[in-house]
């Protein structure tokens, strides 16, 4: 995109720099072209301060009808690609109409910006935060430059975090009882649990624990649900007999999870499930799915938790 802009608008070079770029944490973001890029990371209520630099190509001038910077929170449905729904939009005017002959910096500041949703890139939807610089012009068309940034919001440890315990089965065939130590896990958490085999009349081959993500977009009749299996973790190899108990210990850190988003601006939701799958010797699958909540724990306390 930049490339194209460059080709058509060689007139000037626009860049956005954040004031605390050196100290600010960065996060990886997957771009549309598939590459990941390290991008500054913010959270809700942060002050977003920076500078927009406009640098005309030497020997040329830029004539404009005003320069502004917008902070946009956008949701894009892939079913309706290119059409952004802005749930947040803030504007700062940077310059009155005039001409620029040489490099000029325009500082800007958005204070305590409300950014309730996290940056997200799913199968059918993405949510992004972007700074949009517009140099309004007449005939040659406006110059627009985007600068992405990532937003992540942290939650405290939930005060109530019950374990999940459940007995399921097929009558006279298979009865198991499983237990996950919590119902809410943070992103770097470990799922600890146990599966008890109360009755086994089926020859098992193996048992996996899957982490599945359910992304639903739209609402009402047009709701579209997409489920992805993010992790497939083998818990058991071979056929257990009655009375066996199989331990579960699944580290979440290797997987690319996001927190659970229950309802993001009525546009989409992302939920996580643990799916316990038993496979018998004839490759029949028996499974039980349980929703878990995933939340993002602040980094420092996250580490404490991990230990």
């Amino acid at each position, binding site marked *: 995109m930049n490339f194209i802009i460059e080709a058509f608008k060689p007139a000037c070079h626009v860049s956005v720099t954040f004031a605390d770029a050196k100290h600010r944490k960065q996060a990886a973001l997957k771009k549309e072209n598939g590459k990941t890029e390290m991008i500054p990371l913010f959270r809700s209520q942060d002050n977003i301060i920076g500078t927009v630099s406009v640098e005309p190509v030497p020997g040329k001038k830029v004539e404009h009808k005003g320069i502004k910077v917008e902070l946009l929170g956008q949701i894009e449905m892939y079913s309706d690609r290119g059409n952004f729904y802005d749930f947040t939009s803030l504007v700062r005017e940077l310059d009155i109409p005039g001409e620029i002959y040489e490099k000029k910096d325009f500082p800007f500041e958005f204070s305590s910006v409300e950014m309730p949703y996290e940056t997200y890139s799913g199968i059918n939807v993405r949510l992004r935060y972007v700074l949009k610089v517009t140099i309004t012009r007449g005939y040659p068309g406006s110059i627009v430059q985007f600068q992405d940034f990532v937003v992540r919001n942290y939650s405290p440890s939930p005060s109530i975090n019950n374990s999940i315990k459940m007995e399921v089965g097929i009558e006279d065939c298979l009865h198991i009882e499983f237990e996950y130590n919590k119902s809410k896990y943070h992103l770097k958490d470990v799922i600890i649990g146990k599966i008890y085999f109360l009755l086994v009349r089926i020859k098992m081959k193996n048992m996996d624990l899957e982490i599945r993500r359910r992304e639903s977009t739209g609402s009402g009749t047009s709701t579209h649900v997409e489920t992805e299996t993010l992790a497939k973790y083998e818990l058991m*190899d*071979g056929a257990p*007999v009655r009375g*066996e108990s199989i331990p579960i210990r699944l*580290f979440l850190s*290797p997987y690319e999870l996001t927190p659970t988003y229950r309802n993001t601006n009525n546009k989409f939701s992302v939920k996580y499930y643990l799916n316990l799958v038993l496979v018998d010797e004839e490759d029949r699958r028996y499974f039980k799915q349980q929703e878990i909540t995933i939340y993002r724990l602040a980094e420092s306390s996250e580490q404490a938790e991990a230990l």
Partner: protein
Amino acid sequence: MVADGVEDEEKWLSAGMAGLQQNAFYMHRALDSNNLKDALKYSAQMLSELRTSKLSPHKYYVLYMKAFDELRKLEIFFRDTISLGFSIVELYELVQHAGNILPRLYLLCTVGSVYIKTKEAPAKDILKDLVEMCRGIQHPLRGLFLRSYLSQVSRDKLPDIGSEYEGDADTVMDAVEFVLQNFTEMNKLWVRMQHQGPVSEKGKREKERNELRDLIGKNLHVLSQIEGVDLDMYKEVVLPRVLEQVVNCKDDLAQYYLMDCIIQVFPDEYHLQSLETLLSVCPQLQPSVDVKTVLSRLMDRLSSYAASGVEVLPEFFQVEAFMKLNNAIRKVTEAQADMPMVGVVSLYASLLTFCLQVHPDRLDYVDQILSSCVNELSVREGLDDSKATRQIIALLSAPLEKYKDIDTVLNLANYRCIMEYLNDSMRKEMANIIIQNIMNNKKTISTADKVDALFELIKGLIKDSGVETPDEPEDEFKEEQNSVARLIQMLHSDNHEEMLNIINTVRNHVLMGGAKRLPYTIPPLIFSSLKLARRLEGQDQSVTGEDVSVTPKKIFQIVTQTIDALASIPVPGLALGLYLQCAEAADDCDLEPVAYEFFTQAYILYEEEITDSRAQVTSIHLIIGTLQRTHAFGVENRDALTHKATGYSAKLLKKPDQCRAVYACSHLFWIDDHDNVRDGERVLLCLKRALRIANSVQQMANATRGSSGTASVVLFVEILNKYLYFYEKGVPQITVESIQDLIKLITNELRGDNIKSDAVADAFFSSTLRYIQFQKDKGGAISDKYKLIVL
């Protein structure tokens, strides 16, 4: 199909090996370049080859060993990584990210072992975690190998007493707990193997399981190696827990193996002190378990422990080991009514060995065991089984070997009862063993009762059982009978009366032996009797008054009757020899009529039964020799006997035999220490006659072959020697001239043209001449006589 299966397996194995090696190669590269991420990735891929279900335990082991070697390299790498500052905790987590459980757990165990070494966390916690996590593998084969890997890498890292991983109080308990748990889980998997797969492959599965059993047994071995497992802990924790698993698994293969394992790996004194617990399990085992072998092994071990030194014996008494074992055996035999005979017998045999070792002084125990055994024999069948036979024989041999005294054994009332249950060949074998034992111990048996009991025991050798036995190899039979003969020589009592009783007893037994045995058994009996007779003779004067019941006469009566028994069998040579022996003995006792009677018997035999010319020659020489030695005969009797003997000699078939017998007869007429027998005329007569015969031998040789053989020359030299002998003795009828004539004759014969020189005759003659020369040179009276002979 089977061949195909094997071939396929080979293929799968080599495919697995190839995959493993390839990933190992990448892993090495990652190790060399210090790339942890790749190392984990490729090691996990490498270990994925172990996820196969297609290999038999044997082949799987090959694969496992290869992986094991590679994991050692990985472990070293992990250690290096940690020493460079990488967090072990992080590494411990990192390996758990692997999606597949089997590679994950192998890696976890490997890192876990490094983790323990760093001592950043208590060994017990890590071990507990590892052993718990391994539950994820429920596939028997893979689970067994994984857990055996765990056991292997943790062996030197248990928080044992004195180990560097020992933590706070009671960490030995943790070590024990860990091993026990791993053992329990492994055993469960092992047992489960039996129940998976089609019924038709049951045998194959059993075989495969047998190949794997050492993996399980190793845990018990580890337990026994833990320093902290002292007697109390063994009794209170280890043994009950292991036994609980043994009983609960309800699998015969496992129960048998594990019981055996327990017995073999733990120290003897532990067994002794926990005997009750251990034994109480036996009746609870599956009926198909070979409890007898288990018990036998236990008893064997305890026996050898008892044998290790007397200082341990009090321990045995203290725990009443014998009673406990005895009870256990009774319970087991009661519980398993269909136990084969061999089992029952071997149990008792082991118990007996144990008893002899621990309570050598308790004959009542021994008899008790034998009596239990008799009971079992009376209700069960199947003693024909050759293994059972072996065991019975072992059982019966044990007391013999222990006490080295047949007397003691004869005191065991039930010993004979057991013998009753044996078949012929076993009885024989047992009898042989008994005899051998008596021989080896060189103990004489000195009362008639014992002799009777003993012969009752060995009657398998003494008489036919009535059933016609299939042809027994001649050698073996001879060997057996010879041992009986030797045994008879071992029966001895200093008391004459008792000795006579013994002889009578033996005789009664022996005479039942039948024609085949008598030639072997009668001679020793006769000699034994004659020995007694001579002993009586020696003491007769001193004890005349009291010992009236036993006289040489009486003995000779018995002896006569005994030899008569031989008459029915065509062994006249033997009977003749025996009669002559008797005659000589009677002669020693100065019983002239008895001796004469014996000679008569011998002569009758010679005339009527001995027809073979060769046997005749032998017999006649025997007769002459015996007769020459007697001195009890009056002139008349003596004349009669010598006359007969000379007559027989002259009637032998072959001339040389005649010649030799005749010149031998010459000795009958001149006996140095016998004044009545000095008849020079008759001596000369005999010698002359011999010369005549020798002459005719020569002529016959000339006539038939055209040249005189040297045989006659030898005869001449022999006769010359006789001449010299009697000349030396001073027989007046033997003159110097006759000797010189003879020498001349021989010299001519030897120098004769038509005679081939004969080395034997030459040598004989020249040494005879040398003798004459020697006597001449010697000096003294004899020398003077010899000087008259002119050579």
